Structure formats: C-alpha cells, structure tokens
C-alpha cells in the first residue's frame, strides 16, 4: 500500500554502528512508496511530546533493538511506558512489528522480549503485527559488504523481507526466529578472537578479560 506511514524506531542504546541500525537500513530498502520516519531512541534520548504525537499518526511502528538480559533494554522500556500512557484512553489505529537481535547465535532466545513487546501493544491498545528474532547479531555489521540475502545474510534477509511485506499489507502473523547461515562453532570462535583483540586495543592484556573484582 502506498502512502502508508511507517515509523522505524531504533532502540539500540548506541547512536551509531548499531546492529539495530543495520537491520533497519536493510528493512528500509524493502519499502518503496511508503512514508518512512525514523526515530532514534538511543540511551541518552528522552522521548518528547512531539515524538509521541508523531508516533500516534503512524500506520505502522517497527521497533528494532538488541536483546538485553533476555528482555528490552531499560532505556527503551522507559520510552515504551511513556508511549503506553500517551496512547492509553485513545489508542491510535496502528500495528506494531518488532525485530530483536541477540548476540547469542539462536534467534529463538529473543522470544521473551518479543512476547513483552506484544504485551506492550495490548496494554497500549494497539494491534500486534509480528516479531522477528535474529541471532548472531554480533556478526551482522561485519557483513556490510555481503549482499542482502546472500551467504550468512540469507535467512536474516529473508525474514526482514517477509516482515516488510507483512507490514505493508497490514498482516498479523506469527513470530519468526532465525540465525545467520554460518556455523555456530565458528561464530563462537570469531567472537572470542574479537574480544581478545578489542581488549588489547584498549591497552590491556588478554588475561584482563578474566578480571575478578
């Protein structure tokens, strides 16, 4: 549907280079005639009345955020409570979709966070569309040079494309969980090497990763 108003809400605490931003960039490429508005809800952000008003006139809200301690990052949760309070009583006619990325390899570990987003939609009086859980989030941003839908990005791209289609058609359907098309043991090894490298870049030693206070 053209002229559909879609809000892409980036709930990563990080202002730049976030996996959620990477996911939303890809998702944006699957929309065509729709009117896209981006809402960066990062850690330092406090939601404004203007943003609440702008969200209420959308047809579709798409939240993207990282899995934090099995749930929604607290800074985003604070905004969700404010949005619920704003919507409550006179809820707008809109539908909510969410994409949660996890550092763990298995996308299904995002299930609790997506269930909470669905519960938030109900509490806010708006309709739930669909949730997508993507595992292996730690490697996605390193795949910028891999074409959408190719190699390790095959399944993540497939589900993002499906979400874009469902959102455009206003369809409510079940959650989908995926992992990158990449061996889990290699992801685990690569993550470990990455932490060893990053701590050395900070002038510390690899053994410092194991510091106990």
């Amino acid at each position: 549907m053209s002229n559909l108003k879609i809000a892409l809400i980036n709930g990563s605490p990080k202002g730049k280079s976030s996996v959620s931003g990477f996911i939303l960039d890809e998702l944006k490429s699957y929309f065509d005639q729709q009117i896209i508005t981006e809402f960066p809800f990062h850690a330092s952000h406090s939601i404004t009345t203007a943003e609440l008003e702008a969200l209420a006139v959308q047809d579709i809200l798409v939240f993207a955020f990282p899995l934090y301690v099995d749930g929604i990052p607290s800074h985003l949760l604070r905004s969700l409570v404010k949005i619920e309070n704003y919507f409550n009583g006179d809820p707008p006619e809109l539908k909510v979709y969410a994409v949660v990325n996890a550092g763990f390899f298995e996308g299904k570990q995002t299930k609790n966070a997506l269930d909470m987003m669905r519960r938030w939609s109900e509490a806010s009086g708006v309709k739930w569309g669909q949730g997508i859980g993507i595992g292996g989030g730690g490697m996605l941003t390193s795949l910028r040079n891999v074409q959408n839908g190719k190699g390790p990005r095959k399944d993540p791209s497939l589900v993002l494309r499906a979400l874009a289609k469902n959102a455009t058609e206003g369809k409510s359907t079940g959650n989908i969980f995926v992992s990158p098309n990449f061996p889990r043991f290699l992801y685990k090894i690569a993550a470990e090497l990455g932490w060893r490298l990053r701590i050395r870049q900070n002038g510390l030693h690899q053994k410092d990763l194991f510091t106990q206070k």
Partner: protein
Amino acid sequence: MKLIIHDLTPEQEIEVLLPKQDTCVISDDGSIKPCIGCFGCWIKTPGQCVIRDNYGNMGETLSKCDELILISRCTYGGFSPFVKNVLDRSISYIHPFFIIKNGEMHHRLRYNRHLNMSVYFYSSGLTEQDRTIAKSLVKANAINLHGIVTEVLFEENAKAFGGRIK
C-alpha cells in the same frame, strides 16, 4: 550475602522489607544511568561498568552474594524500567566468552558463583499472559546468570509481600 534489588518507594520498602543483617539493598535513588552498550565492562574496565554513578559496581556486588531477590512491578510481563536498568548494568558479572549449555549459546561465568534467585512481581490487573512471560523470563535470566530459581511470586500490590520476603 543476600542482595535485594527493588523498585519500591521508601514507604513501600518499610512495609515490605524487614531489616536484616548481611543484606545489600539496591533501590532507586533517581541517579541511575542506562547501559550504553559499549561493552566497556568487559574490555575497558573488566568487571566494572564505565559509568560511575551509584550503580557502577553491580557485577562485583553480585559476585559477593549467594541469594538474589528481585522485587519489581510487572511491566509487560517483565521487570520495571528501574529493576531492568540495574540488571542491564550488571553484565560485568558474566564473561564475554560464550559457552554452549543445553544446546544453546550463553555467556560463561566470570566468578565461580551460583546464585539462588527469588522474584516477586506486583501489579494490579496481572494477566495469565503476564505471569507466563514473567516465569519464562526469570528462567532465562537464571540460565544466563548461572542461577537457580527458588520462587517467582505474583501479587496485585507490593504491600502483599510484607513479611514474606525472607
């Protein structure tokens, strides 16, 4: 040591918690900052959050406790923003490296410590769905924090837990 993290007001705290020895209580003093996703607690100041507010040593505090008690308003089937904020700021308790546990990827332990976890959720109008999500969430938290769930209880208001939190 017993660690209690709660979102109660000072008045509710008096009604609900009995003063006990060897107990650390973390409550909302209004100063907590959100986690900024920098992983500094793993690779810049390992074991400690880089944000130096009153909640920057949560990983170390957890490492000294054997019993974790969470008292929280049930919010969409999960924790309230404050309690969740404290948990988000506690990830230095675990190690960045992964292990495979029950066929799933999780973080390995930083400390050789296993927590007993009790969670007390309160909220008016709790639904069956809230309870189901909350129980599933606490189970997942326990796996990731290498803990054991002792109990998960629900009440319509915090006061109903008065004298029951041991």
